[in-house]
C-alpha cells in the first residue's frame, strides 16, 4: 500500500540557532511521536522512523524555515496534521506549516540547492564605517581568494564566488524595538551536492576584515529553495517565498 509523504516546515530562531543538525533530527522524531501521526518505520534490524530533513544548518545560524519529510501510513488532513505537529513541537522548534508531496519527489537534501542568508550587524560594531565601505569590504571577500576550511583532518578550498554568485545586498535600518540601528546584509549561497561552502564559514570570512566576531551578530537562513537553471526559484512548500530577494 502506498504511503503518504508529509512535508512540514519549522523555524529555528533565537536559542534554537544553537542546536546542531543531529539534535534537530532527534527532536523532530520525538515531536512526531508526540504528535501521534501514523509514521512509517524502516524494515531493518533497528526500525527507524522514515524521516528526511533538508540541508544541515550550522550551529549558531538561525532559520526562518527548515523542512522535513515524514512518511505516513495513512492520510491525515493537513490542517489536522499541522495542528498536531504544532502542539507537539518543542519551544525552540515551532512548526509552521505542512502539506503532502508526491512520493516520487526528490529528497529535500538533494533538491534544495540554494539559500538566502541574512547577516544582522549592530551598527555599533561597525563604528563609523559607511555602508559603502562595508559593501566594498564584503565584495572583496566574495570575489577574493579561496577560503581554506579544515574538516576531519583534511584541508579543503572554496572559492567564494562559486557559491555566492551575486554581490551582497546591504541596507541600513532601525531594526529592533529599542531603536538600535543595524546593517542588514543578504546574499544567496548555493548548496551544490558536491559540497557546499558553509554559511558560518563565509559569514566569518566577511566579518574578519572588520574585526567582528561571528558570535556578536545574528545570522539567519531566511529562505531555502530550489534554484532552476533559468534562475527561477521553487519552494518546498507553498507560500514560503519571503526573503529570497537577493538572487
Amino acid at each position, binding site marked *: 500500500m502506498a504511503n503518504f509523504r508529509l512535508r512540514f516546515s519549522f523555524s529555528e530562531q533565537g*536559542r534554537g540557532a*544553537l542546536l546542531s543538525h543531529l539534535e534537530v533530527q532527534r527532536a523532530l*522524531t520525538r515531536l512526531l511521536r508526540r504528535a501521534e501521526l501514523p509514521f512509517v518505520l524502516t524494515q531493518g534490524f533497528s526500525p527507524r*522512523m522514515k524521516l528526511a530533513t533538508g540541508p544541515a544548518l550550522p550551529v549558531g545560524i538561525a532559520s526562518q524555515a527548515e523542512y522535513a519529510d515524514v512518511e505516513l501510513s495513512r492520510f491525515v488532513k493537513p490542517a489536522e496534521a499541522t495542528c498536531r505537529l504544532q502542539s507537539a513541537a*518543542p519551544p525552540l522548534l515551532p512548526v509552521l506549516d505542512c502539506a503532502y508531496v508526491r512520493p516520487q519527489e526528490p529528497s529535500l537534501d538533494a533538491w534544495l540547492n540554494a539559500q538566502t542568508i541574512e547577516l544582522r550587524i549592530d551598527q555599533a560594531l561597525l563604528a563609523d564605517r559607511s555602508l559603502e565601505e562595508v559593501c566594498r569590504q564584503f565584495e572583496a571577500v566574495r570575489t577574493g581568494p579561496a577560503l581554506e576550511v579544515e574538516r576531519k583532518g583534511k584541508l579543503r578550498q572554496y572559492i567564494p564566488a562559486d557559491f555566492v554568485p551575486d554581490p551582497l545586498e546591504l541596507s541600513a535600518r532601525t531594526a529592533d524595538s529599542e531603536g538600535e540601528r543595524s546593517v542588514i546584509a543578504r546574499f544567496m549561497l548555493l548548496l551544490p551536492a558536491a559540497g557546499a561552502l558553509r554559511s558560518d564559514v563565509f559569514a566569518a570570512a566577511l566579518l574578519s576584515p572588520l574585526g567582528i566576531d561571528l*558570535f556578536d551578530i545574528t545570522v539567519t537562513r531566511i529562505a531555502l529553495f530550489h534554484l532552476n537553471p533559468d534562475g527561477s526559484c521553487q519552494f518546498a512548500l507553498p507560500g514560503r517565498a519571503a526573503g529570497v530577494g537577493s538572487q
Partner: protein
Amino acid sequence: MPAHQLSEQFLRLAARAQYPSRSLDHEWGVSTALAEVQEGCEIPPGVLHGAFCYPASYELGQSNNAIKILTALANALPEVLAERVFLPGDDLRALMRSDGVPLLTLETNTPVRELDFLGVTLPYELSFPAVLEVLDLADLPLRAAERDESLPLVIGGGPCVYNPEPLAPFFDAFFLGEAEEELPSLMQRLTELRGQGATRAEQLCQLATLPGMYVPSLYEAVATGSGTRTVPVAGTGAPPVIERVVARSFADSPAVCGSVVPYSEVIHDRLAVEVQRGCSRGCRFCQAGMTYRPVRQRRPDDLLREILAGLKATGYDEVSLTSLSTTDYAQLPELLRRLKSRLDPVGVSCSLPSLRIDAFSVEAARQLSGGAKKSGLTFAPEAGSQRLRDVINKNVTEQQLLDTVRAAAANGWRRVKLYFMIGLPTETDADVRAIGELLQRLQEMLFEEFDRSLARAFTLSVSVASFIPKPHTPFQWEAQDSREELQRKQRLLEDSLPRRGVTLHYHGADTSFVEGVLARGDRRVAAAIEAAWRAGAGTDAWEGNFDLTRWEQAFADCGLDAVNISQRQRTLDEDLPWGHISTGVSLEYLRREAELARAEATTADCTFEACSACGACQAAGIDPKTVAGLRRGVSGDRQQARRGSDA
C-alpha cells in the same frame, strides 16, 4: 545587571563554548509555571524559589532520576518554583568567570545566589570538589557559616549523604533518604518559616526537627578513646541520631516523573522507569544495597500504564526499566511480554540496565533485543574465586557464570562485559589469579561447545574496579589496599589473563585512594577538599581531569593522614564519624555480616528466603513479611542452584 541582560550575556558566552545546546533550556516538558516565567511573567511574591543541582554537566545531570523526581515533586506544590542547575563545561566556566557572569538556573536564568534554596545531589565522592565549584561559580561563600541571610540555604542529598561529615562545613543541611514523602512537607515548612520572617539560624533549627534532616552546624565532632563521634551541640535540641527517610508508598508514587525532553544527547537519553527500589542481594561491599533497603516493587499494571503515558508525553523511542537489580523484579517476564506487544509495533525499544548472572537474564535480554543487532551483555561476578565470592556474599557460582555466557553465545551475542573488583577483604594473590583462570575456563567452554569461528570472535571485556570500603556496609571497618598494592595486583591480573579474546580496563588506583579518603573521612577532610578545589580539583570527577598530586598536597597542607583514613583496619566497636546517621540497617546486622564474611559464610537473599533481620523493614515501618519471600517460587532458580551446588 538586569536579569534579561544577564541571560543574553550568558547565551552569547554559551554560543562560544563547546556543546552550546547544554545551556539552552526551553526543552519540551518544562513545568507550566517555569515556562510562564520564561515567557516573561514575574515570579509571584511569597513563592519559594529554588533549584536542584547536579554538580556535573547537563548531559550527566539531566540523566539523573533524582533531579527529575525532586523537581517534579517540588513544582507540584503551588507555593514552590523549582529549577535545575548544572555545572557548565570547563570552557564556558572560564568565559563566565572572565565576563563576571555567575552561575544561573537553567530555566529562568536566575542567579543561583538569588534563590531561596539550592538542593545539591551528591552522586559520588569525587564530585565533592565540584560542589565547591558550583558554590564559587554561583558567587556564594563556600562555608555555610559565612553565608548571610540573603543567600539560599544549601541542602545536600543523594547517595553520598550517609557520611556527610567531609562536606559538613559547606552545607546548611542535608536530607537523608528518599524524597517522595517528606519533600513536600519540607518545602511547605520552609515557605512558612520564610513567610514568618524567621532568620537563617531559626529556619535551620526548625528544619532539624523534620524527619531525615541533618543540620551539621548543630553538631560537633568529638574525639573519643575509640575514634570520632558526631554529637549534637548542647542546648540545640537536635536529635542524636538522624534516621534515613524511606518512601513507604513507593509503589503508589509516580513511576515517570516529569516529561522534560532534552535537545542535546544526554547519557541516558530515554524514558527511565524505576520498577523497584532497593536490593536484597546483600553484597557486603555495596553501599546502595544497604542504604536503599527495603525492597519495594511497583505493580506491573501501573508500570505499563505509566510507561505508555510517559512515551506518549515525551516521544522517546526507548524505555529503560531501572533499579539496582531489575532482573530481580518479580513480575519482569510478565511486564516484558506486555510491553513488547505494545511497543514493538511502534518501534520503541526496551532496555535493562543490569543483568544478574543466570539464564533467565539472557532470555530476558533476548526477548528484548528481538532480531536487532546484539551489542553486548554485562554481568558482575565481582570476584574470581568462589571463596572470595562467598566473602562478599555474591551468591553466584562459577557454573552459573558458565551457563550464562553459554546462553549469551547461543543466542547471538559475541561480547560479554564482566565486572570484577580487586582489593577485596581477605583477598590473596590466588584470588586475583582466579579471575584470569575463570576467564580461561569461559574461553575453553566456548571453544569446546561452539563453532571455532564464533569462539574466536567472542570477546570478554573485563572491567576491574578497586574495592573501596563504604560507610554503612559490612565492610565499613575494613582496610583499603594501598595504591602500590592495587597496582601490584593489577599487574598480577594482567599476567594471569588469557592471551587473546579478553580486553581489560582498570579503574585507577589513584582515584580509588582519594575516593576512599572522602568516603570515610570526618570533618577534618573538608579543609583538604577545599584546598584541593583551590588547586584546581573542581572537576576531578570528569574523565581525564583527575590529578593525584593536587590531593596529596592538599592532604599534606591540612595535616591530614589520608593513608590512615584509607588503610587502617577499624575494630567493630570503633566510633565512626557517621555513627549519628542511621540508614535503618542495624549496626548489629553489619557486624554480624562482617564476621560472616571473615568466616566465608553467605547470607541468603531475604526476598527468596527468611528475613535476615537487617532491621531496615522495622526502621521504615514496613512489615518484613511483605519483603521476605517476595520472590519465593517466582524466579528463585539462582538460589536453588546455589543450594544445589553447595550440597
